[in-house]
């Protein structure tokens, strides 16, 4: 009796354990694709509703049931790995970047290699092959990249301060120093107190993340992450220009032209000193210009113009413009082999993505529904005012749906019309400045290459130099200490990274 009872208990344990793991079972591939499942991140507070107007319109335009699993951005990478390890895999997964986790999965064969396939689909054939190359893993394209503006670097400053002190907008890094010094020492807010500084920099140390330090280094000619020297690729921090640029930043720190708590200052409060009239300069992406203008507009709608000025990339001490581009993409839409099993199915999924990237769907994902939340004026999408509840729902939803946009052949939708003439002018000037800077862009020559050693311990390695950079600027170590840290990068595995990157670079030349 006991034995039976015990075995019953054991059986219960086993069965309940099995039901937890045994939801698997292969599904028969559908002959024709009637529904498409997508996993995508959402960055808003709430995911869009599954029966919203945008969802309905999307299904109408593509002719498929589109099941989107919206996953919070903060836990997206974990969820990606869990999804891949499980059995309920979607047909399309938004992958946010070449993270070590993704690279390992891709190299183990988790995703379709699309290198020779995308050109067959008119809307998936990229007009920027170098960006597609950047998004590849050593030349192998594992997804349709999500295009982003390749040029975004800008210097923003308090225009009213500049006018008051009778200064010109900076053109060179030397000008930046002069403006920062004037903002610090000449009482630009006119309150008679020594309570202002030049540039505000938040806690943002990591290498190669388009931080203010990265931008200034690039302007000095250190290159973009990697640079070619004597026929070899070296990390930009092993150049003389890197040291020069950091000497320049250190000079500004020492003369108190930069906020003294730059190593700990909370990045989410970055706009506050600018808005409150403490620190007059921010070096960041140009879209922050609009954010800053909006702050002034909310505080004083009648009198917000000419508070925020900006210029693009700055000319370095060598008299040349080395503009800092981004990688031009933000992750990609990859297709897992575990779900899409045959070439024929893959073709169907790619056709679906082709439709997604066409003008109709791209407009839906990025602008919304014409007549509901926007109208077209002079080729621009103008938000319908006053907003109707339906219009507002669409405008909110597309903030998430835009995550599915690829735009590999340029933006296939309407540019957004700005709220006022002044803002439109600023926006047009931004577009113009960025287009001009793009001509002088210095790209990262190693962007497409993924070195095995770097995947295994790149983040630890880079931290050595990133921390040393901040310590040097804060005066904890001297220049020799910074050089020692760079040597430590080499000996801790960096030499191997260099070797691998150079081999990949030579092989793909």
């Amino acid at each position, binding site marked *: 009796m*006991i034995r*039976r009872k015990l075995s019953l208990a054991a059986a219960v344990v086993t069965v309940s354990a099995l039901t937890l793991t045994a939801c698997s079972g292969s599904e028969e591939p559908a002959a024709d694709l009637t529904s498409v499942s997508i996993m995508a991140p959402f960055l808003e507070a709430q995911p869009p509703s599954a029966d919203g107007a945008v969802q309905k319109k999307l299904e109408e335009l593509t002719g498929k049931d589109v099941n989107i699993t919206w996953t919070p951005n903060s836990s997206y990478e974990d969820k990606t790995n869990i999804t891949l390890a499980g059995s309920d895999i979607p047909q399309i997964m938004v992958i946010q970047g070449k993270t070590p986790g993704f690279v*390992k*999965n891709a190299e183990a064969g988790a995703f379709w290699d699309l290198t020779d396939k995308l050109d067959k689909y008119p809307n998936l054939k990229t007009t920027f092959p170098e960006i597609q190359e950047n998004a590849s893993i050593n030349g192998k394209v594992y997804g349709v990249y999500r295009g982003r503006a390749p040029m975004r670097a800008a210097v923003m400053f308090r225009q009213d301060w500049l006018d008051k002190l009778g200064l010109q907008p900076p053109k060179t890094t030397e000008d930046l120093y002069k403006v920062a010094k004037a903002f610090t020492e000449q009482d630009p807010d006119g309150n008679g107190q020594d309570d202002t500084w030049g540039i505000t920099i938040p806690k943002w140390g990591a290498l190669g993340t388009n931080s203010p330090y990265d931008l200034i280094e690039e302007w000095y000619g250190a290159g973009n992450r990697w640079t070619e020297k004597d026929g070899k690729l070296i990390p930009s921090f092993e150049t003389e220009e890197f040291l020069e640029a950091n000497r320049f930043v250190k000079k500004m720190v020492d003369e108190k032209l930069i906020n003294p708590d730059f*190593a*700990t200052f909370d990045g989410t409060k970055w706009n506050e000193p600018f808005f409150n009239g403490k620190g007059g300069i921010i070096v960041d992406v140009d879209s922050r210009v609009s954010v800053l203008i909006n702050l002034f507009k909310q505080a004083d709608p009648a009198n917000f113009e000419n508070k925020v000025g900006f210029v693009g990339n700055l000319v370095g001490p060598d008299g040349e413009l080395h503009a800092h581009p981004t990688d031009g993409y933000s992750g990609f839409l990859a297709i897992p082999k575990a779900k899409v099993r045959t070439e024929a199915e893959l073709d169907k999924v790619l056709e679906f993505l082709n439709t997604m990237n066409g003008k109709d769907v791209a407009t839906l994902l990025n602008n919304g529904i014409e007549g509901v939340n926007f109208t077209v004026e002079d080729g621009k999408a103008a938000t319908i005012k006053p907003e109707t509840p339906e219009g507002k729902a669409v405008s909110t939803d597309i903030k998430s749906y835009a995550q599915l946009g690829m735009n590999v052949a340029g933006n296939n939708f309407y540019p957004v019309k700005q709220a006022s003439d002044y803002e439109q002018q600023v926006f047009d000037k931004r577009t113009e400045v960025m287009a001009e800077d793009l001509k002088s862009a210095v790209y990262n020559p190693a962007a497409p290459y993924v070195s095995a050693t770097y*995947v295994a311990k790149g983040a630890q390695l880079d931290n050595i130099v990133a921390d040393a950079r901040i310590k040097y600027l804060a005066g904890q170590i001297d220049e020799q200490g910074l050089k020692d840290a760079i040597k430590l990068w080499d000996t801790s595995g960096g030499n191997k990274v260099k070797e691998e990157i150079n081999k990949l670079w030579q092989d793909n030349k």
Partner: protein
Amino acid sequence: MAAPVVEAEASGRAATRPPARERKNGRFSVHFAHYKWLYLLLLPGVLYFAVFRYGPMYGVSIAFKDYVPFLGVNGSQWVGTQHFEDFFSNPDFPRLLGNTLILAFLNLGIAFPLTIVLALLLNEVRLSILKRTVQTLVYIPHFLSWTIVASLSFLLFALDIGPLFQFLNGVMGTNIDFLSDPAWFRPLIVLQEIWKNTGWGTIIFLAALATVDQDQYEAAIIDGAGRFRRVWHITLPGIRSTIIVMLILAIGQMLNTGFEQIYLMTNALNRDVADVFDTYVYFVGITQGAYSYSTAVGLFKSLVGLVLIFGTNWLAKRFNQSGLF
């Protein structure tokens, strides 16, 4: 419907004197039949541990594999103890171990006794309403998340404008940025720990203090013992076993230095003293996708924790105290 038959069979067997081995089983069966409802009560607990605690331990095997999520736990390659070798030969290892141990001992050496001191102080408060109010007030910080504690610290110690920054630097005549100065990282962490958890930790000691025999105090008062004498000779021996049990538990948790707290307080300037096993596992495992490696590090940490628990328990018994088990 099979059960009665089985029972009949079992009782029949018991009647015909089975051999010794069977008889032992038989006794257990009687025991089991007698307490079957209690065993049924036990079942959910056993199931819970089997499914949610022991089942997942299977995943620890990835510490010995080169885990790739796509290939799954079973499909990934075995690599033996390679991850452990990598970890121990890593130049980060001595630093991590040092930082973890220093923080652990600071917490144990400062925060733990303070809990007992606070409990003793509360116990000496005569006015019941004052005692209850203070108790409630000191519990509150425990319910704030580390994010809030860190934000409060950032505000209080903010460079140039934080009230504590101004006060402390004013008193010491210095100009220290507490948030980025590596020398101040550990004091700050211990201070936060004390502020947040000391009050909460007193609960168990207060409960133990309530059990101390009141007659002994009266006798001591008659013998002319002062307050400190009473605390030293009656109160402390009275809660000694509780202190030892709590100490063993605290030592077992010692290496869990608190990921959130340290992660939030770390920056480029203090990372050298701030990195501990927990933050390292997060940094390497989650942000770099090195799941196997970080599992190996986590496993090592757990083993050290286990050794510490057994070690302390053994020591406690050795010194003639009751241990935990």
